[in-house]
């Protein structure tokens, strides 16, 4: 086989590809949330990684104290964290309206420190195991590789969420409002749309997306207070590569960067932790606005 020619067993190659696709799903869902938030609030949400972690912890706590299973947590955790997001927007981010956008980044950075610091204090820096649902235990042998059901589910679920978000934004009335709010909030307000409410909902939704990714990740990475702190920087690089202009751009860039990272692990393992940053540097040289971005 051709992959054998390159001296790499197909199991290794496809295994890393799947792993890349999973990471790519997380990048896609997280950068999608960042793009939604940035569109309406003009804020880069540095707390995104912390809220992703909060989603995983919400699922873990729900299971531990209320005996809610994985499926219930997959719905409830994003709702809870999304509600926390709504509160954060109402009571903190709202106060920064009309101030330089950089302060939004700084405020959410402080929030991330606060949340992660609190959770390290309460739960320690080591991870809590989180079991995948029984229905998704085991896997299937595809001949060229072994596919664990849970990992396949992560990719499918992420893709569905991305597709739904894309549909809502591009094909529905509320999506039209949201896009109008991105383009020109003042004009939209003049048409009688409640823009502050729309903004709050957008923040809540973006945050809920992060929490959803957190619950999906919990059985794979364990539930750890710092699980989002390095991830968010990679997602920032993904966002720079794709540009925050479009929903589809965020999804495509996220997935493909995951795959690129997976392939790098096979062919050039030393660079696997830096490859996305290298791609970012190349994109900045060749196409500073990002692959899907518009200038300004």
């Amino acid at each position, binding site marked *: 086989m051709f992959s054998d020619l390159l001296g790499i067993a197909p199991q290794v190659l496809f295994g890393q590809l799947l792993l890349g696709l999973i990471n790519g799903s997380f990048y896609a869902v997280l950068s999608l949330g960042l793009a939604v938030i940035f569109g309406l609030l003009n804020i*880069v949400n540095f707390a995104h990684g912390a809220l992703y972690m909060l989603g995983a912890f919400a699922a873990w706590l729900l299971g531990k104290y209320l005996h809610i299973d994985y499926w219930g947590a997959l719905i409830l955790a994003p709702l809870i964290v999304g509600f926390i997001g709504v509160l954060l927007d109402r009571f903190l981010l709202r*106060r920064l309206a009309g*101030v330089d*956008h*950089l302060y939004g980044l700084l405020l959410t950075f402080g929030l991330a*420190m*606060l949340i992660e610091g609190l959770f390290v204090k309460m739960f320690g820096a080591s991870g809590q195991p989180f079991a995948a649902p029984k229905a998704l235990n085991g896997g299937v042998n595809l001949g060229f590789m072994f596919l664990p059901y849970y990992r396949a589910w992560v990719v499918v679920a992420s893709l569905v969420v991305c597709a739904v978000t894309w549909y809502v934004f591009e094909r529905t009335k509320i999506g039209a409002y949201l896009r109008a709010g991105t383009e020109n909030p003042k004009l939209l307000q003049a048409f009688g749309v409640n823009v502050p409410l729309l903004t709050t909902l957008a923040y809540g939704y973006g945050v809920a997306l992060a929490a959803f990714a957190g619950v999906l990740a919990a059985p794979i990475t364990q539930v750890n207070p710092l699980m989002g702190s390095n991830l968010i920087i990679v997602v920032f690089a993904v966002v720079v590569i794709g540009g925050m202009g479009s929903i589809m751009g965020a999804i495509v860039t996220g997935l493909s960067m995951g795959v690129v990272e997976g392939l790098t692990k096979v062919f050039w393992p*030393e660079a696997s932790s830096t490859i996305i*940053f290298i791609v970012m540097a190349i994109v900045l040289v060749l196409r500073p606005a990002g692959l899907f971005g518009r200038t300004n």
Partner: protein
Amino acid sequence: MKKYLAYALLLTLLLVAPLLFYPVLLMKVLCFALFASAFNLILGYGGLLSFGHAAFFGGAAYVTGHAIKTWGLPTELGILTGTVAAMVLGLLVGVLAIRRQGIYFAMITLALAQMVYFVFIRSGFTGGENGLQGIPRGTFLGLVDLSNDRAMYYFVLGVCLIGFGVIARAVHSPFGQVLRAIRDNEPRATSLGYNIDRYKLLAFVISATIAGLAGATKSVVFQLASLTDAHWHMSGEVVLMTLLGGLGTIFGPAVGAAIIVTLQNTLSSGPLGAWVTVIMGLIFIICVLAFRKGIVGELQAALRKSFN
């Protein structure tokens, strides 16, 4: 006249300080004050939020440590080598980062610094998780033994005063004026015929170089260069120091650095040691929400009000 008197008083205070306080803590404050002031040059005066300054601080610390420990360079040359390394790194990062503005600039500097961090983890000369330990302090010009804390303090004070001098000179020069013009209104500065990218890049490189000088000096003081110095938490810390002290004020960052370093030192030995990150996060949030001018900025505003 009053101004010179104030400077003389400040200098006297700095000279007698090691008699009153623990010199190692003072040296730490000085290094971070220089780091924050360097950072302030690019954020406070250039309006560019760099979230990657730890790469220059930590990178210079590693290079200096390596130069002194392995190559056997004298202390002054070691610090110089680290500073030049930070300058080169600043040029590379700056060239890429100034291609975008505002929020993207912050994300790009953060991502590039993270890349540098991963390179440090992987390369052998940094000692990985252990860092570079036992860097000899050496002597100053072969004459003064720097293993003595007081001697070291005056050496650090000298180095930092040079750094502060460079920053103050840059801020109060025509270059600094143009930089502020760009910060306040980029299109206007462009239309006046300034090549804004060149100004931004120069400001970024100066800032990175001085940040490197601070990191290099710190590695000699503590005889240690570690991953902590290069981690993005460090980049966040320097933002906090600058913000707390006062963005775009000459003395603000130094005041912020003194407060944060002292606070961390006090907290880490007390019962609140585990809460340091939480407290830093809280200060951050309060600063952004209620206190955007910072301590020195608010004081200046209050003074101005009382004169009018």
